[in-house]
C-alpha cells in the first residue's frame, strides 16, 4: 500500500471553509520570524553594481486572493519556487514577508480571501517566477 499520495485524492480534500473573519491574525501579533529576508536574499539594491553587470531582474505584482492562502496553495507555491533556484521569491501580506520556498512561512502569513498580497521576485527568471506564483495564487479553488 503506497501510503503516499499521488496527487490530490478526490475524496476528503482539504477544505478551508471557515469564514475569513476568524482567520484574521490577532492585532497583537508580533512580527514573525518569517519576516526576515530569506538566506538567499541578494545584497541591497543600493550596492553599486560593477559598471558592466546588468542590474538583477526584479518583478513585483499585487494580486487579490480569490481564496485563502492555506496549506495546498502554499505547498504548490513552495514546489513551484523550487523550479527557480536562481530567483528570490517573496510573498508579502499585510506588511509581513515570507520566503516562497517555505510552506510553513507562507501559511503563517494567514492571508485570507479578498486580501491583497504582493509577489516580489529578484534574480534570473524573475518575471517567469512571478507569473508562476501569481497563477497559483489567483487560481480558483480546484
Amino acid at each position: 500500500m503506497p501510503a503516499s499520495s499521488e496527487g490530490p485524492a478526490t475524496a476528503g480534500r482539504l477544505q478551508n471553509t471557515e469564514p475569513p473573519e476568524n482567520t484574521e491574525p490577532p492585532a497583537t501579533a508580533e512580527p514573525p520570524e518569517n519576516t526576515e529576508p530569506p538566506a538567499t536574499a541578494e545584497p541591497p539594491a543600493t550596492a553599486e553594481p560593477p559598471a558592466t553587470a546588468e542590474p538583477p531582474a526584479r518583478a513585483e505584482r499585487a494580486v487579490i486572493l480569490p481564496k485563502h492562502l492555506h496549506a495546498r496553495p502554499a505547498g504548490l507555491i513552495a514546489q513551484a519556487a523550487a523550479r527557480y533556484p536562481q530567483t528570490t521569491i517573496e510573498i508579502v501580506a499585510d506588511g509581513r514577508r515570507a520566503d516562497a520556498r517555505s510552506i510553513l512561512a507562507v501559511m503563517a502569513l494567514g492571508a485570507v480571501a479578498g486580501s491583497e498580497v504582493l509577489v516580489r521576485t529578484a534574480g534570473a527568471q524573475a518575471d517567469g517566477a512571478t507569473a508562476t506564483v501569481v497563477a497559483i495564487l489567483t487560481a480558483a479553488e480546484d
Partner: protein
Amino acid sequence: MVGIVLVSHSPALAEGAAELVGQIAGGARVVPAGGTEDGRLGTSTRLIVDAIAKADQGAGVLVIPDLGSSVLSARAVIADLDPGAPPVALADAPFVEGAVAAGVAASIGADLSAVARAAEEARDARKL
C-alpha cells in the same frame, strides 16, 4: 526521491498525517508507521523497518517520530540498519509541521540532508 516515514504511537495519527502531507506535497512518498503490530497504541520496530523499506526509493529515508517511545524505537531501528542499506536519518522536528515541510522538500527532489533540514526548520516556524 527521499522517502518519509511517520512514526506515531497512534495508527490513526500516523496515517492521517501521511494523508495530509500527501495532499499538500503531491508526489512525496510518505509511509505511516503508527501503533503496534496488532493496531493498538504503541510503537513497533517491525512496522518501522517495513515502512522504511516501503518509503525507500534509493535516495534515503527521513524518519519523523512523534514523541517518547516513537523516538526510542526509531533510534533502535536506525542503529540496527545494515551498513549497506540506503541512508536513513531521524528528524528532530514537530510531527505535523515537520512532516509537511519535509514532504514539500522531498517532492521537489531535495536530498536527504536538505529534507531533514526542512523538517527541523519547522521547530522555529511560527503559526501566527
